[in-house]
């Protein structure tokens, strides 16, 4: 359970990134935080693992204020995968990289071995176990970064822009993977610009603009709502755009993905024939 209570945050350079954000995330929820650049998405999630402390207000994870525990301690519960894997890779082998956090948390060597094996096979990286992470491609490095966080099995997983630099196939794998994590009972929070990705994942969407939450709700109701989407400066999924444009035909406009569209169109055909 993550409780964000009326949080304000101002960066040292005077930019107010969050102005009065309140939010409750229950265990096992799947959340997507969306909004334009500078809306405060990353600032908000950095509060959840204590990297940033609110200037005003409070953030509590499982009832404990983030002000009272260190980032390292909080990380045990909250796994945070950063946008750019190159900001964290430094070990000689992928194995060491994945084991880094486990060593920091003081796991026993035997357990570390087991966990690393598990995390590597989870992300299809087993054959790179002894390879240098710097030799891998961009997508693979991203997966190593992900494995290095999932290895300690945190209850809450935060992914900052997970789809950047991934081709369609990797994205699809990532989507299945995230959904799988969520069905295993983990709280998953993704920060992203990728509407198509969100439309396919169907999480609970939080729209942010100028440091405030402008709307939250199911992916379908938020991303197909023309006013909300404009307010948060988001371009809706292409399928939804088509149905906006076809509003003259008296077709429903809350169409979020291809399956939805297919259903709507088939229904229409049936009626007319």
């Amino acid at each position, binding site marked *: 359970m993550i409780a964000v209570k009326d949080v304000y945050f101002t960066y040292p350079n005077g930019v107010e990134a969050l102005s009065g954000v309140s939010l409750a995330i229950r265990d096992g929820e799947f959340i997507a935080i969306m909004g334009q650049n500078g809306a405060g998405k990353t600032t908000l999630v*950095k509060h959840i*693992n204590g*990297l940033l402390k609110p200037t005003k207000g409070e953030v509590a994870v499982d009832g404990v204020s983030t002000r009272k525990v*260190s*980032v*390292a301690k909080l*990380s*045990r519960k909250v*796994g*945070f995968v*950063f946008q*750019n894997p*190159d*900001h*964290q*890779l*430094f070990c000689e082998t992928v194995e060491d990289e994945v084991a*880094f*956090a486990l060593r*920091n*948390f003081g796991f026993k060597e035997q357990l570390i071995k087991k966990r690393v094996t598990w995390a590597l096979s989870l992300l299809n990286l087993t054959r790179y176990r002894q390879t240098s992470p*710097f030799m891998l491609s961009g997508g693979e490095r991203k997966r190593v970064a992900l494995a*290095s*966080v999932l290895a*300690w099995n945190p209850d809450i997983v935060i992914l900052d822009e997970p789809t950047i630099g991934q081709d369609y196939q990797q994205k699809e794998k990532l989507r299945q993977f995230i959904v799988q994590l969520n069905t295993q009972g983990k709280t998953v929070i993704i920060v992203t610009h990728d509407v198509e990705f969100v439309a396919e994942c169907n999480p609970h969407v939080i729209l942010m603009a100028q440091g405030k939450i402008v709307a939250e709700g199911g992916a379908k109701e938020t991303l197909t709502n023309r006013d909300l989407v404009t307010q948060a400066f988001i371009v809706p999924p292409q399928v939804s755009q088509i149905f906006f444009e076809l509003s003259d035909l008296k077709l429903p406009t809350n169409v979020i993905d291809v399956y939805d569209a297919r259903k709507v169109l088939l229904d229409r055909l049936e009626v007319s024939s």
Partner: protein
Amino acid sequence: MSVFDGFKFRRVYSPIHQLDPRVKFFYVLVMFVIAIMFNQLLPLILLFFIQLPFVFVAGVQREWVRSLRGALFFAIMIFLFNFVFQYFWTEYPLPPSPSLLEYSIAMTLRFIVLIESFSMFFLTTSPDHLGLALEQSHVPYEFCFAFTTAVRFVPVLAEEAQTIMDAQKARGLELERGNFIKKVKNYIPILIPLIVSAIRRSLELAEAMESRAWGATEKRTNLYVLRVKRGDYLLALISVLILIFAVYVWIFHREQIPLLTNFLAPLELTVTKIS
């Protein structure tokens, strides 16, 4: 990061900011040379105060104080090293006396004067001006460019270092944990990604520049050209006068510069008399 903040240029305008960087650098060099020439406290105190008007005219007091505060740690180290080593490890050990104290303070102040003048220079000189000054001093353009790029990328690197620190903290790294050696080791996970990404960035920058025809013309011209104005001549004159005076004192009156402890001595006498 507080030490670096004391050297970061901020775009404000003052008579000092308008000065020609070459002349300003000459002034800094003069301060540097004089600070090295004397090891007595009195001239170094003078040197410290001579620079204050510049700081106030430029209006960079706050940043300047921050740079001094950043140098505090090193200043204390220098003081302690001088004090302890002069006592134990020299051929003519000075007993811990007021004069040893004065010598150690002088050495510390010398360091502070150096920091003071360099921070003044960097606080009031934009990297662009600096690059121009180098170019007009006939330094090859490649070097000038490398220099200005390096200066310009400092804030970018600082920001990146912060992100990397966050990323590693999120994986349970505790920078402040352990003894001294462990603490140094804690920084490896931060330094390696930082260096790797700096190298990668520089390669990308080189490619981007070459694809925009960098170095295509042999003889480059500049939109802005530095010209030496009246203020610059004034500063150059002041610097030369200070230098001449300092050299004069150094050559003819070096031995007569009084120790401040000598001024204090009568006081001490009266104290002992009373007791």
